[in-house]
């Protein structure tokens, strides 16, 4: 008999659907069917048991080929790389659980590494705006239950977050929104007429790179000021009409994507979007939310904030105090300046996402990839450590785009012998402590005070 696992969380995007039903074969080894997931989520589950998986760590040989090694050897290699490096970088984490992130932070602190996540090349500019201006937001269920006006700005959930509109924003019938789609006004702002724009009641084709001006115009109108005939390619009458809708909403949410935080203006675009939200709260209720990409890219921002007070770009190289200064301590900038002398790519694919010059610099030094799958990073690494797929083979907590923690389940066992991200980092940490102790034994320093390092 095949077995159905219900209420499964999906390890694809920041929507974090937790209503998947996964059918597993009799022997618990094969995933047969995935219900409720979008096409992409579906593929992630089927991929887990659909083909060959890497089952052992692979170490690059002098002739350029990979050779299988044991986890112990891989852990030892990784720990030694970190131990010897002056400024290692541990980057990624969009696709792993919070337990893995916490364990990685322990390693980074011990090794004196720079710790960074994919926000660095994604919603990092949103963080900059949040540092300056705050973040009036809500959980997605609030939007579902209350919102009568929805704005998507520079985001295309129809492709990037396939179930966002049906679960939370446009279509669902909530407590105060019993008529679903019919009770809501949908406004889409994008230079491209995207598939999301197809479902909009009002589509504003903002001139590319002129988002800031359009926000400015909305703020001016909302505050009762005059604006020019055309702003950012939009006619005044339409801006006034939309501003009126925003002001008269009962509850509204602005969902914004990379179109805002990575087009000209970047953090300033997000900043003024937050300011508009603040302004609107003088009239009615408005909220704003970043369309975070991967299912747990919100996670490292949460975990490292409670551990160090910074969500990304953490420079722990001083070992006794953490430091964050995006531009100085951000992954791409460090790599472009060739400041990093060892690199761990975990739960992402820096090989595919980083500029080629950054990759070239990083590649001069040891490069370790920790990932369940073969990806561009794994193929140019010195060491590839395979791990179980979070949400499929490894349970754990992930943070949805609205910062709500979702408890993910395990559907099947990982391939035999394959361990989790968390275990990899815990073992690297243990090995680092051993290396440190060996060093101390060689050259005795003053004895540590009584009771120190319980549990290490």
């Amino acid at each position, binding site marked *: 008999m095949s077995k159905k696992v*219900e*209420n499964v*969380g999906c390890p694809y995007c920041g929507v974090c659907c*937790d*209503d998947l039903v996964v059918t597993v074969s009799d022997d618990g080894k094969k995933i047969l069917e995935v219900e409720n997931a979008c096409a992409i989520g579906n593929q992630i589950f089927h991929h887990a048991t659909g083909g060959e998986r890497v089952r052992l760590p692979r170490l690059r040989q002098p002739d350029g080929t990979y050779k299988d090694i044991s986890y112990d050897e891989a852990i030892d290699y990784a720990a030694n790389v970190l131990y010897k490096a002056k400024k290692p970088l541990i980057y990624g984490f969009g696709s792993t659980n919070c337990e893995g992130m*916490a364990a990685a932070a322990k390693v980074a*602190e011990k090794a004196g590494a720079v710790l960074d996540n994919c926000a660095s090349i994604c919603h990092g500019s949103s*963080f900059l705006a*949040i*540092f300056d201006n*705050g*973040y*009036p*937001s*809500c*959980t997605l*269920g*609030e939007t*579902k*239950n*209350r919102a009568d006006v929805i704005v998507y700005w520079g985001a295309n959930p129809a492709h990037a977050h396939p179930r966002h509109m049906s679960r*939370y924003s446009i279509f669902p*019938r*909530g*407590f105060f929104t019993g008529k679903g789609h019919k009770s809501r006004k949908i406004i889409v702002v994008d230079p491209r007429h995207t598939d999301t724009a197809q479902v909009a009641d009002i589509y504003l084709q903002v001139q590319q790179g002129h988002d800031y001006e359009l926000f400015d115009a909305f703020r001016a109108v909302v505050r009762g000021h005059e604006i020019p005939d055309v702003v950012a390619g939009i006619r005044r009458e339409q801006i006034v009409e939309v501003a009126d809708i925003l002001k008269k909403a009962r*509850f509204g949410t602005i969902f914004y994507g990379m179109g805002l935080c990575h087009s000209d203006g970047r953090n300033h675009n997000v900043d003024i979007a937050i300011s508009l939200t603040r302004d609107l*709260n003088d*009239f*009615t*209720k408005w*909220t704003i939310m970043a369309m975070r990409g991967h299912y747990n890219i919100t996670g490292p*921002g*949460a*975990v490292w*904030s*409670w*551990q*160090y*007070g*910074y*969500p990304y770009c953490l420079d722990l190289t001083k*070992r*006794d*105090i*953490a430091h*964050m200064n995006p531009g100085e301590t951000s992954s791409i900038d460090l790599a472009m300046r060739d400041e990093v002398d060892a690199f761990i790519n975990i739960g992402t694919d820096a090989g595919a996402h980083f500029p080629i010059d950054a990759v070239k610099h990083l590649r001069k030094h040891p490069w370790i990839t920790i990932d369940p799958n073969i990806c561009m990073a794994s193929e140019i690494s010195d060491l590839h450590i395979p791990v179980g797929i979070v949400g499929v083979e490894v349970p754990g*907590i992930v943070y949805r785009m609205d*910062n*709500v*923690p*979702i*408890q993910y389940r395990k559907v099947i066992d990982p391939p035999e012998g394959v361990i989790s991200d968390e275990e990899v980092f815990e073992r690297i940490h243990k090995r680092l402590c051993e290396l440190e102790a060996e060093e101390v034994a060689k050259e005795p320093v003053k004895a*540590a*005070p*009584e*009771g*120190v*390092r*319980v549990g*290490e």
Partner: protein
Amino acid sequence: MSELLIKNGFVFDPLQGIKGDRMDIGIKDGKIVETSALENPKTIDAAGMTVMAGGVDIHSHVVGPKVNVGRLFRPEDKLFKSPHKSPTCSRMEMGSSVPSTFKTGYDYARMGYVFVNEAAMPPLHSPHVHEEIRDTPIIDNAAMPVFGNNWFTLEYLKNNEIENNAAYTAWLLQATRGFGIKVVNPGGSEAWGWGLNCVHIHDPVPYFDITPARIITGLIETNEHLGLPHSMHLHCNNLGNPGNYTDTLESLRLAEGYTPKNNFGREQVMHVTHLQFHAYGGDSWGNVESRSKDIMDYVNAHDNITVDMGQVTLDETTTMTADGPFEHHLRALNNLKWANVDVELETAAGVVPYIYSPKVKVCTIQWAVGLELALFSKDLMRTFITTDHPNAGPFTRYPQVITWLMSRAARDETMKTFKWLDRTIESTSIDSIDRELDLYEIAQMTRAGPAKALGISDMYGGLAPGMDADIAVYPLNPEDMPSDPAAIEKAFSRCAWLVKDGIVTVRDGEVVSEPAKRTIWVDVKVPENAQVQRDIYEHFLRHYSVKLDNYSLFEEHLHNPRVIEVNAAQ
């Protein structure tokens, strides 16, 4: 396991009525024992020092989503304000007004505290709260889920269905591994879903059509129906506004006629938190004045109420509360950055940085109001020290608060820095109060009292045999108290010794070990209730954005639990 003997200290234990007697305290297997039960103990020489039970904090925001927003969006709270890592601690310590989890644990331990009650847990976010509890070393934590704006609660109480509300409450405590009933701006945070508020306790909640007054009494009834260790824990409506003391008095009066029913030694039915924010007269910021006397006269005369101070410490800090509309209001006052998180069906939250400056009249009046509350109190077993961390100031300033309470000279010293000293004196009573509290009273306010009010005084807050061996030794000689108030502050900042669960954890003010900490939660047995089960099922089917089966905390995310069982099934 190891044995310890704390010898010759001056012991202050209000739970046993011990007032500075020279005594020895025996410790065996993590518990306090008669000294005769020890065979071969290690000895700690506490001669000339003050010995108290480990501190108990009844109200502090230390873990959870809004605390973490405060950390995330204030990098300036770390820059040049974080200490360098102590070589005797295992992790870095970052932040000041909203410290990292590690710093939180270490700093509480250094001050001799062992138990901290997280003041507001949004139920939907309970896995987050428990993740942070895992990463908060040494101190034991409990967390109170918020009920005052919860749709289930509003519906049940509107229909006077106390039993159903009790069954739901028991379920939610179980689902979130929560400790008790927290109420924040009852009704107001739900109204905030529409950008509105319930300023007075008779303003009906939009749509739900129930008044904050009824939410408060209904939750008192629910709490006593269940017989929980702690009472209903209230953050009143109309926080922080001039003239709000009348609303506060009205809220306090709601407790009249209710008596506690529980097996935990608790004697109050209502704990009113951060009372300082609720004791203002006047009708504008221009003429705001202290009304602490009126408030404390009422509290002194009614022993079914406990309160904590919420003392303003005159620091730059980060305000954060489930009182969403208040934070929106505050953002308009100081125009700093504002974060907000409305939580579906349950609550809201806001976060705004704030600078309490000795140069600002309102801030110095607030400072006086907080101290007056304690100094007017006739029963310090019912009046507790808090700063509503981090709202009125960070918890790391408790030693300063203690010093202000113990020393008129310390108060005068601080008042000298006030720009509007005359106006402050005019608007408050602080200058006419000479009272100085003693160490016994401080022990009442910081361990015995809060432990009793939380219903955990069989484990925490005292030094009787059988209780947890949580003991703080402060380098203060009660027979030779320092004339310099700064010395008192220093002694309470860094205890000489902290023993936690029988393990030496702090020595000479430095953390020397990190014993396993616990999560305390309350498991209530109630009769099966099909209606409530159906209501839960329906709301999760239609209105929550997560599945019911993913909402309750998974067992693996609960860390080192200590469960308090309550049987309300008879």
